[in-house]
């Protein structure tokens, strides 16, 4: 793992604070998230303070600091979804999964991410599990939607 990391960082060794983003994106694409280890490693190899790298990374919603769960749930909080009360969906998901947005359940099954627009405003409020859109989500059906998705999922069947 750290070999891949070093290779990516060494390819971008001349980055400074203003050109840090592509490097962070590349690492996230490779690892799925930005681990503490990867941020420390960027700091060691480029000489940038980790507090600044972490500061840049936390500024953008696109970066995760926990690995994705087996079921990655994204909830839209763009304008159309916001006026259609997507906040309630986020709260309900946080309640059911017992995690906060940006976190992953301890068993590694679910992760929750809030995004700004998924381009499906016509069917707001929208959520998305592992790339599959769930249009016009309703708060009281959230649990059924997740359970339905999980039981139909081949990943889940393979686990059984």
């Amino acid at each position, binding site marked *: 793992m750290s070999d891949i990391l070093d290779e990516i960082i060494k390819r971008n060794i001349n980055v400074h604070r203003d050109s840090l983003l592509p490097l962070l994106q590349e690492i996230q694409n490779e690892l799925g998230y930005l681990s503490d280890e990867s941020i*420390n490693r960027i*700091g060691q190899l480029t000489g940038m303070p980790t507090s600044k790298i*972490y*500061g840049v990374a*936390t500024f953008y919603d696109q970066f995760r600091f926990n690995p994705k769960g087996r079921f990655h749930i994204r909830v839209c909080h763009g304008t159309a979804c916001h006026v259609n009360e997507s906040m309630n969906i986020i709260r309900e998901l946080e309640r059911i999964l017992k995690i906060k947005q940006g976190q992953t359940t301890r068993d590694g099954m679910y992760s929750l991410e809030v995004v700004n627009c998924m381009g499906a405003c016509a069917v707001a409020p929208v959520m998305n599990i592992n790339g599959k859109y769930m249009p016009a989500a309703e708060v009281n059906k959230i649990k059924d939607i997740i359970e339905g998705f999980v039981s139909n999922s081949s990943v889940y069947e393979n686990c059984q």
Partner: protein
Amino acid sequence: MNFPIEVNNKIIIARKGETILEALTRNGLKVPTLCHMTELNPTGSCRMCVVEVEGKANLITACSHPVEEWMKIKTHSPRVVNARKTNVELLLSNHPDDCLYCDRNGNCELQKFAAELNIRERRFTGKKNKYKTDPSGSSIVRDQAKCVLCGRCVRTCDEIMGVSTLGFIGRGNTTIIGPSFNRQLNLSSCIACGQCIMSCPTGALHEKRHSADLQHALHNTEKHVVIQYSPTLSISIGEELGMKPGKDLYGIINAALRKMGFDKIFDAAFAADLYIVELAAEMEKRMRSGGMVPMFSSDCPAWVKHVEQTYPEMIPHLSACKSPQQMFGAIIRSYYTTTFHVDIDNLYTVSAMPCTARKFESKREQMTQKGISDVDAVLTTREFNQFIRLNGIDTHQLEPEISDSPFHVQSSAGKLMGATGGLTEALIRTLYSRLAGKEIAQPKITEVRNVKDYKEYYMKIGEFKLGFAIVNSVKYAEKIINEIKAGRDDIHFVEVVACPGGCVNGGGQPFSNDQNIAKARIKSIYDNDEKDPIRFAHKNPAILDLYREYLGQPGGEKSESLLYTTYSKREVSL
């Protein structure tokens, strides 16, 4: 190039290239600032310094906008004052509002603005900041709820110290300030220098208080309370008592402490002398036996931590000598208790220092004997001042007294350590006598005084041609360390003080935005050196007595067991 501009219907002269704020300040016009600090890059984020410029639709931040020839500026028009007032009201809207319970009650900049702008009602009721305080650090406590996000601590940590522990985390109204990964301070790369406390306008950063513990010990009749205070303290407490900056209150402090009920009062300048004598002995040993040269100074605990975490491969270069505070702690716990028959279990040692890192140092694992710390409590200058007031001492009615024997004599060499370059100067004086076998003809070495960022000084002592490097703030240490790693060998001693200017500008000193105060204190140190009868650490009779009666000789077996310490690598996110 100078040109006239119009300010408040009057003409003032501005210089090309300076900011509006600089032009106004130079002409004696005061504009309130919050996020601005003269030595830092301007950000214009707090918008307290806004001024009205004719022809511009919006108000302009004076701290970050260059002055231009055509400008007609209004600094206190109703529009400007109203904007400033609204800014402060918005900052207050999520502030915890617990001023009476706040560390900065009475000297908070936010409080000052609220009073100046006459804010008397709550116009905006925002959601209150609710963050847990972080008491994990051994020196510095962070209280995120009181933070106004001015970024002064972040920029100080970055630009002045070069440590970059603190950074902004997140975005918008969920932004917070914290170390990497928003971990606790004790797990971070913080070197505890306390410069962030000095730069914080509110109570979001303050030192960990030891004074309550001390008050209990002081009034416990069984406890034998001994205090050592830094010589920098005597030239730093005057301002708060209404005297001019840099005034030396040496004898007054002794009298005040005696009135408060301390059993023994020692001036830590004695320990500074001891440190210099030991350091010279170690230096000579390294020079003659081919030890690790250059030797790094070890008196600044912030610098020591910086080496341990940033340059662990350079640890062998650090002098093995404990800092003066810890040397004194060890001597009090051993020599003093046996000579004066004090029960070691009832001994309570206090140290008063202009420094926050000393609190961290006293808790270092290597600084204990049989699990007990050599120094029980460390007060900063601010806490010391408050302690004097708490105990109802009127310093104006006190007559100077001398500190207690057997450590009652101090040379002016030890006192030099309060300023950057002072250690080198004092060390050269003692080293000269060791290496050349005679005293130096001119003890005053102006070349090592008032070092700006970094300076090298060469001197031939006996058979050796020695190179000394003086580094003013850890930020400038990187260059010399890289050169040493690359094989540079003409430097033999590197003095590093974490805080720019030296201990006189330490993180435990009274709050002030005035740069000249530190200069006045430095001047006071050098003036004192001119008129002191004892200008060499190794000529201090009390030091000579201590070696004759107890320690044997500098660098001897007893010194090594009591006054030497070890260092270890630290794993932190840099």
